């Protein structure tokens, strides 16, 4: 034991010293890092709901952000979902209309899909297919498009990544029942909240505080790994 310590005292001492130093660095920087992540989430929410300005949290729905325009009118919801991709978990944020009946946008917050194949799910050209898709039935990735709604062109050679994104959205919007798939409780709740907002449109957003516009769309594209989208 004494011999062991005589050999290893430097390593042990350094490990202790560096451990304390790293704990200090982490404690000092953590608030800033968390704030950065929050700003990135708000920026993504503004991208997936067109016309969105103020973003607030929704009490009781931890994975949903409420998006209002500058006048405080409800423009839609940004819903976060995650699921297994080809290489690692994929996290996405997708936008819904106030009544939850259609998608308004999609960004990929985190992915480790194959560069050049699966990670094409971050590109605007692929993501824009989700705009306007109804949420009342499953989104299906297809390799040959037949012109039906709810069909998503799978990325060539990366059907697993494409399927994963569709599944993540389907799991949030639909629930299995004995009669088949039905709109999920989340959609029903959001529709209720939208109705309340219509009855008293001047009422402030429920819970949370309004967030100012923190970042530009260029920043969002940097977070989501896509090229800045061109307005069409």
């Amino acid at each position, binding site marked *: 034991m004494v011999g062991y310590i005589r*050999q*290893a005292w*430097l*390593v042990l001492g*350094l*490990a202790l010293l*560096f451990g304390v*130093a*790293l704990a200090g*660095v*982490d404690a000092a*920087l953590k608030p*800033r*890092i968390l704030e*950065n992540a929050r700003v*990135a989430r708000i920026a993504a929410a503004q991208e997936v709901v067109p016309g969105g300005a103020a973003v607030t949290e929704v009490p009781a729905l931890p994975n949903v952000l409420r998006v209002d325009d500058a006048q405080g009118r409800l423009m839609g919801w940004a819903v976060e979902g995650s699921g297994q991709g080809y290489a690692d978990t994929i996290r996405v944020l997708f936008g819904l209309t106030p009544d939850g009946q259609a998608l308004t946008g999609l960004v990929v917050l985190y992915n480790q899909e194959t*560069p*050049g194949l699966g990670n094409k799910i971050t590109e605007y050209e692929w993501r824009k297919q989700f705009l306007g898709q109804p949420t009342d039935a499953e989104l299906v990735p297809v390799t040959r498009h037949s012109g039906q709604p709810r069909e998503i062109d799978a990325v060539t050679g990366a059907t697993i990544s494409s399927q994963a994104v569709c599944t993540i959205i389907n799991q949030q919007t639909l629930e299995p029942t004995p009669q088949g798939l039905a709109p999920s409780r989340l959609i029903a709740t959001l529709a209720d909240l939208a109705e309340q907002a219509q009855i008293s449109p001047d009422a402030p957003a429920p819970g949370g505080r309004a967030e100012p516009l923190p970042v*530009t769309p*260029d*920043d969002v594209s*940097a*977070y989501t790994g896509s090229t800045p989208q061109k307005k069409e």
Partner: protein
Amino acid sequence: MANGLPGPTTRFFNGILPENPVYRQILGMCPVLAVTNTMAGAITMAGATAFVLICANVITSLLRNALKPHLRILVFTLTIASFVTIADRTLAAFLPLMSARLGPYIPLIIVNCIIICRAEVCASKQGVGTAFFDAAGTGLGFLLALASISLVREVLGNGTVLSGWAGPGGLGLRVLPESFPTWNLLLLPPGAFFTLGVLMGLVNWYSLARKRRVAQGNLFTVGAEAARAEVQA
């Protein structure tokens, strides 16, 4: 110089070209190939690496008399890993976009052999001053290498320099007209190999041409005798 090892000035200038970590020692190829498609990313990577290099070299040099031969690599790795974590967290806090873009390559500095090489070759044997200048020179050499590779790749691949940092909306300063057909391939992984190969060839050609001039007596330098011998051999 007492023990026959180069002094601080020699160490510093050696790191820049004669012993350039990328062009001469072919070390640290992972960041060289992975993050040189934009200049901003490459410079950030080189800055983080230089920070870790200097801190690790200074600490190692301070501890050099207490190092046990069979435990030294453990001490090097521990020191390097700690400073890499500090660099990684600092980037995440103050340059979140850059941190997101560089992704896993900042934590991967831990296994960058340039740093452990400097600890082994210089810092574990020489004083703090020499170790500092050695790290600074090597860091500068690494920065020059990454900046030169990324300059070629970004200009020809995207038509800009410093996208993400300068220019309108951070899109970069446009140096080639919009009509220039950009070589997208240079931004993709194969472009890193092509650029590295061509630039390394140019550096070798320049060094050889310089040695030849020295050998012919057109250029007088301290190393003339050695260069003459080398060319003849």
